[in-house]
């Protein structure tokens, strides 16, 4: 039936087309923060193994300008364009980087991991496990035996009128610019959120010379440690509980001031005078989100664990994920107050993960096993807090801000599953679909919401809107946030130029049969020529 069957090989399949992979390592570590560096130093102590540590910092200026990997909000100082200066800042900020290099770790800075591709039954054409890496110039593959992901966290976005202005940024982004790059272009900031992570970063910003003008919290009291709050208040910050941001007011540099509005316990806005606060930066510290995109896209089981700050990989006591060659350490394995307050927890996770990886590689770790790291007992109801922020600040806004800035989708459009405006689709409002129309039995999967509304489909890869959309789906469907499935992540989990990806080497045989969809000649014989006519046709992709 096909034109090329005698050998029993399907020339249009992946068979024999495995790409050449020039680089190999035993242990790949992604992320050179406290957890990743501790893992690298632990692994390096066991001689004879190849240990490769990659970190995407310094991130190219253009990438930062697109709010990848964090919501930088345009508050990068001009020095971030100077790569050497940024490398020096990084090495200053993280002295263990030099230690790791001295210990023989292959340290690659400015190198992002954009995909992990384990061999599995449904994708077996490349032997072993492969990671996609990229620096500013090139993308490449490296094969690995074990991987530790220590990718840190990012920030939950919450939309309000004017949140697209330069100066509105995530707390982790502000901290990254201040602490790693020494390049935060901010003088006066309003901190939104009062949890441990937000207050910790607020204090770090204070130490970096940023004045914190106000701390804004939708709940009736600050949710983080009093001593961290007290230090901010002592520096002159004002605390506004039961308040959210009504809007930002801008000048050519971005944010010039914010207006705050009071809300009641249901998130409804109170009448009464608005608070006006001059500032050049709004730091969104509503929630720190474990950065699990690499882990989830690789296929590890993840679940919503309130004690660990949201969706995190399912881990055993040795930080090992459901894919047994993958370990998670640091914030991407879970975020809780005591871990935020002391880097030692992340370091310990890094050491434990490295010890487990070493054992899997057949090497006995030098140190005795450490006890497993467990999160603090849950104290906060993060589901309710996150939904409350979205309800009070976003749904309560009179101007319908874009929840998804890239694709310009409002909260009402998410809740109504509206087709994107560029389709100019007109339909009576009474007939407009609702979230429940996808499946009356359950909340729609955020991937469905995304595909219908386009919310989350833009160049920032949903980094600023993903948790808001989940909260909106929970609100619209009357579900708990934990019951809303996680929208899937897909590689490349960092945007990659077509030309960069295109430069990956491929097998000479890759072109063989490429043009033939499935290479089944009989598939494309026109129906009027079928029957008796054994004509050979070449299939063409796309028909």
């Amino acid at each position, binding site marked *: *039936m096909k034109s090329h069957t005698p050998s029993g090989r*399907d020339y249009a*399949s*992946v068979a024999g*087309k495995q*790409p050449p992979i020039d680089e190999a390592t035993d242990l790949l570590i992604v992320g050179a923060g406290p957890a990743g560096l501790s893992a690298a130093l632990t692994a390096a102590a066991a001689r004879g193994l190849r240990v490769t540590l990659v970190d995407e910092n310094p991130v190219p200026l253009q990438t930062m300008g697109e709010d990848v990997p964090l919501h930088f909000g345009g508050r990068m100082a001009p020095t971030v364009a100077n790569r050497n200066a940024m490398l020096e800042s990084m090495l200053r900020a993280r002295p263990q980087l030099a230690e790791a290099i001295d210990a023989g770790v292959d340290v690659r800075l400015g190198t992002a991991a954009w995909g992990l591709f384990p*061999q*599995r*039954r*449904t994708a*077996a*054409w*490349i032997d*072993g*496990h*492969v990671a996609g890496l990229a620096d500013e110039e090139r*993308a490449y593959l490296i*094969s690995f035996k074990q991987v530790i992901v220590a990718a840190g966290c990012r920030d939950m976005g919450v939309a309000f009128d004017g949140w697209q202005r330069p100066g509105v940024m995530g707390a982790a982004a502000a901290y990254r610019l201040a602490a790693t790059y020494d390049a935060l272009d901010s003088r006066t900031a309003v901190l939104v959120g009062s949890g441990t992570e937000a207050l910790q970063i607020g204090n770090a910003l204070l130490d970096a010379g940023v004045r914190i003008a106000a701390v804004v919290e939708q709940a009736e009291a600050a949710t983080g440690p009093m001593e961290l709050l007290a230090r901010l208040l002592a520096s002159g910050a004002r605390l506004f509980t039961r308040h959210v941001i009504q809007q930002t007011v801008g000048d050519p540099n971005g944010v010039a001031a914010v207006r705050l509005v009071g809300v009641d316990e249901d998130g409804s806005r109170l009448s009464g005078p608005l608070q006006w606060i001059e500032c050049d930066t709004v730091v969104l510290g509503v929630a720190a989100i474990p950065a699990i995109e690499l882990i989830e896209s690789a*296929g590890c089981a993840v679940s919503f664990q309130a004690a660990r700050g949201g969706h995190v990989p399912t881990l055993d006591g040795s930080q090992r994920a459901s894919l047994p060659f993958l370990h998670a350490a640091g914030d991407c394995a879970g975020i809780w107050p005591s871990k935020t307050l002391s880097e030692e927890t992340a370091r310990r996770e890094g050491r434990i993960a490295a010890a487990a990886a070493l054992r899997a590689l057949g090497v006995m770790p030098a140190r005795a096993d450490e006890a497993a790291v467990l999160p603090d007992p849950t104290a906060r109801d993060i589901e309710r807090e996150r939904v409350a922020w979205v309800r009070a600040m976003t749904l309560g806004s009179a101007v319908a801000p874009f929840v998804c800035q890239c694709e310009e989708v409002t909260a009402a459009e998410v809740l109504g599953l509206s*087709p994107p405006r560029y*389709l100019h689709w007109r*339909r009576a409002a009474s007939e407009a*679909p609702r979230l429940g*129309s996808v*499946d009356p*039995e359950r909340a729609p999967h955020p991937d*469905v919401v995304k*595909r*219908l509304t386009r919310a989350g*489909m*833009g*160049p920032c*890869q949903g980094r600023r809107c993903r948790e808001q959309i989940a909260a909106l789906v929970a609100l619209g469907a009357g579900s708990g946030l934990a019951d809303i499935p996680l929208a*899937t992540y*897909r*590689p*490349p989990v960092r*945007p990659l*130029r*077509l030309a960069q*990806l*295109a*430069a*990956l080497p*491929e097998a000479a045989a*890759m072109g063989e049969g*490429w*043009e033939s*969809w*499935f290479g*089944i000649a009989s*598939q*494309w014989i*026109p129906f009027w020529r079928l029957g008796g006519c054994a004509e050979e046709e*070449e*299939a*063409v*992709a*796309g*028909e």
Partner: protein
Amino acid sequence: MSSRASHGEDDGQNKGAAVVIIGGGVTGLSAGWWLARDGVDVLVIEAGAAGWGASGRNGGGCSHHHSPLFREEQRLWPLMDGLLGYPTEFQPSRIRIALDERQFGLYRRALENGAHQGFRSDVLDAKQVRELVPLAGDNVFGGYFYHFGGHANPHRTLQAYAWAMRDCGGRLLQHTRALGFDTRGDRVVGVRTSRGTFSCDHVVIAAGPATGELGSLLGVTVPMMSARAEMIVTEPLPLMTLGGVDGNGLYGRQTLRGNLAYGGGPHEWIEAADVEHTRPYSTPLQASIARRLCELLPRAAHARVIRSWAGFIENTPDGRPVIDRPAAVQNLTIATLSSVGFGLSPAAGRAIRDLVIGGSCEFADLSSLALSRFASLEPDWREREGWLPSAIGAGE
């Protein structure tokens, strides 16, 4: 065919239907919509979420000029937004770019097949291609402007079928896995599922890669093999006049938002059992797709790839669909569209409705899609074709 409600509210939850369709992809939902439009009591059951299979994982192409369903496909697509009452994002026509003489020769076949059925195409020289396709480059050999075909948005279309079917009184039950059948003589009287048994007067199996196994439970052999294919998506770029541009071995389109969404390249065969309970993961094949997209549209080389996706699709031994009522079972219709189901879905659904209601298709000769063509298939056909999964290597 019994009317709506004849299957009663007996126990509320497991209300059967006149027609139970197994498979909530574009084929099953289109068939469900066509049947519901005619007032037939129809229930679609889907093992996972609707459109989670190949229906939502394809290039959105709407041109199958070799198929007996082509004329109906072409007639229906421009009408679908109005018929369904929800947007499909359909856009007519396609430009196919050849980068060398060989591709130019290959792509001529669409012109010939179209012409045979009364559809016009223009042959384009390199200069004309570059005028029509601003992202094309100096490497163009030539191309074609097919005044037929086009593309639509798979997810939007899938949901449009589901909503339109519901608006006509049809039902869709998701997360409901078909496990087997209750039969009486040569008739199916019930579909056993993970949520109980649903009685029925007629069953349609349109379950993608699971169609073969479900058919075998009724003694009907539907030879097929599953595979994975992959696509990539870039950030939005300024809209070209015509988004339906492909070639250089790729299929895909510029979406109405401006993203380039393209796929192609080698497939990987996968056992049907491995396809269940897992999502399709994309692989470094995305780099080879990016390479060919850079060749096809060099002026887009700076665009960033922001997503990839993979999908599981099934193929029959000759690659052609099956839309048939096998003789062995009185009230069974089998449909597998064999890796080209999305574009054909408006016409395939109508054909299935015809088969269910009247036993034969009113608007096309489906004899080339009958199962009987596989009657003398060798048992080891997969080995002979080399349609075998990759071995898991020694790498850990």
